[in-house]
């Protein structure tokens, strides 16, 4: 099958998946405990008022009718209003999304760079010091909860060593927010040559990014190590060594290049889990991204944001998976889907 036909099939599948996600997101409001109409009006509202509100919100119509109305609104970019912030959810989301992206990308960068290096070092010297370090980090990443690691890091670097700022947001309060281009403070500071903002945003970013990065670090390290060991023992690496190629070339250009193929799909999957981990990390570090927004919406029974976030994160996850599969075509010439 050609790449184009494969892509077409995957896109068709994506439509189905998105449809499924939208149903789940839609039904969420009807499954969750609590009446959205009553929760807006408060416990002292009369039954008539609640009924009026229900009619106003369209909650008295049949479920399919409500779904069609809901999806129609979604396609118009109307995700409903948050009664907590009094803003349209879409607006709140656009405002907070870059913060989460910045956090997730930084965490992923840390996890990939550290995980791949550690995995390679562990594979090159099995049972060596790096191999033991990799095992230790693996156990830590699996068994220690993210928020706990975050708190430990805060105690160590903020409370004890005083080298990093308190976990309150993305910038020091006296530093002006860099001109918005991408919404990622680090990137925007670089683009606008705002070094003060860059320094501050990096200082605020490092702890939450490390905390979140520990989550995907363990699986990436383990996958790299296993794939690297397999590659190093392969016939083509032996043949490359018989050719007299340098060790660096054999390890990095041949063995690692082949070992990265399974690692890439692993990283794609981790990106999805990062969004889940981001909720906890954002709470611990008061990082004003969608994780914190979601948390506050749940606490406040603010249904519209919850519903929208389920939809958006679900679609995002599906898109990431599709991208990773497409990436396979680029990095593995052998892939011809049957």
């Amino acid at each position, binding site marked *: 099958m050609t790449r184009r036909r494969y892509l077409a099939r995957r896109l068709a599948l994506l439509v189905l998946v998105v449809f499924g996600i939208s149903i789940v997101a839609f039904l969420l409001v009807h499954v969750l405990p609590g009446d959205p109409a009553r929760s807006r009006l408060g416990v002292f509202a009369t039954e008539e008022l609640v009924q009026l509100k229900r009619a106003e919100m369209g909650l008295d119509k049949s479920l399919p009718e409500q779904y069609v109305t809901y999806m129609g609104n979604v396609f118009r970019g109307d995700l409903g209003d948050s009664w907590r912030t009094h803003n349209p959810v879409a607006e709140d989301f656009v405002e907070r999304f870059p913060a989460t992206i910045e956090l997730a990308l930084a965490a992923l960068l840390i996890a990939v760079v550290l995980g791949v290096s550690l995995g390679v070092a562990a594979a090159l010297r099995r049972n060596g010091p790096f191999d033991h370090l990799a095992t230790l980090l693996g156990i830590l990443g699996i068994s220690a909860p993210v928020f706990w690691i975050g708190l430990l890091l805060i105690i160590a670097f903020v409370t004890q060593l005083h080298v990093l700022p308190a976990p309150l947001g993305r910038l020091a309060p006296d530093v002006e927010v860099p001109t918005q281009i991408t919404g990622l403070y680090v990137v925007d500071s670089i683009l606008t040559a705002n070094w003060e903002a860059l320094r501050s945003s990096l200082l605020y970013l490092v702890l939450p990014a490390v905390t979140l990065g520990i989550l995907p670090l363990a699986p990436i390290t383990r996958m790299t190590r296993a794939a690297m060991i397999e590659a190093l023992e392969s016939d083509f690496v*032996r043949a490359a060594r018989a*050719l007299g190629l340098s060790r660096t070339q054999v390890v990095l250009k041949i063995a690692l290049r082949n070992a990265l193929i399974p690692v890439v799909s692993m990283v794609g999957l981790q990106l999805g889990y990062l969004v889940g981990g981001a909720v906890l990390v954002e709470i611990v570090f008061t990082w004003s991204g969608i994780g914190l927004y979601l948390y506050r919406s749940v606490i406040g029974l603010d249904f519209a944001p919850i519903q929208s976030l389920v939809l958006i994160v679900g679609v995002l996850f599906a898109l990431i998976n599709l991208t990773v599969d497409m990436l396979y075509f680029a990095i593995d010439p052998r892939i011809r889907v049957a």
Partner: protein
Amino acid sequence: MSANGPLLRVSELQVHFSTRDGTLDAVDRISFEIGANEIFGLVGESGSGKSVTALSILGLVPPPGRIVGGDIVFGGRNLRELPERVLRTIRGREVGMIFQNPRASLDPVRTVAVQLARALRAHHDIGRAEVRRRSVRMLRDLGMPDPEAALTRYPHQLSGGMCQRVMVAMMLSSRPRLLIADEPTTALDETVGAQLLEHLRRFKEEQAASILLITHDMGVIAEMCDRVGVMHAGHVVEVGPVGAVFRDPRHPYTRALLDSTLRIDRDSPLSDIERIPGVVPNLLHPPPGCRFADRCAYVLPVCRPVRPTRREVAPDHHVLCQETVIREFAAP
């Protein structure tokens, strides 16, 4: 053999594999020489230590294997005493090696062009255009159909024979003085295999190079080699000129190998094939004496407890066996 010493001299080479269950004695104090411009065959059953011997020469015995004794003298230098850095300049440039499974021996994610360029640039600084020119020429010399197109292909898009041609091109690109070919025809069909052997022979003639040809096929040995070493369970049991060894085999194992081959050649019914009885002994706990004793039709009481010594039965013809057996054996 040339007058001014052999190109390669392996003496008392010993390779151990440390396993969970103990030390595996894969190659046990073997010795042989390969002269200049000579094809030397190494023949034996699977697991007899042929490939490990070959990899030892390049210093590429895979862990947990380890060379624990002996010397490998190539062109006057003892390869065992050279640091990895120097050994690397010998690999590919002076000693090349082609492997049994050509497709698996090529990098699956790179095109033929990239892999040939790697080989060409491993030891020489060559420009891009020159790399391409030489790549096409090498592939054409090896009988690759449409070499220009082949350069853009990935290994999985090529047949086994084509992969083998690519690997041979890579390994011959620096015109090594010694080429090790480890069962080069096993993965190929008959005609392609024959073409490859023909090419190896031509390479030897044109470059005045030597070849260490590893095979389990006595027919290939007879057809290709000047001299031959017969391996069994980590020992070289007989070594000498092909003519002498085939005409007058002195080790019972060599005789058995020849018998099993010759009978097939005579088109006799399969039931006539004389199978060599028994299996290669467990090398984790090798018997103290002769490792062929349990399978040998001429075994004597002395064979089991006493390790046989290497004896010269004729000029340049050595046998690892008890003298009494050799004598009994030689009697017409």
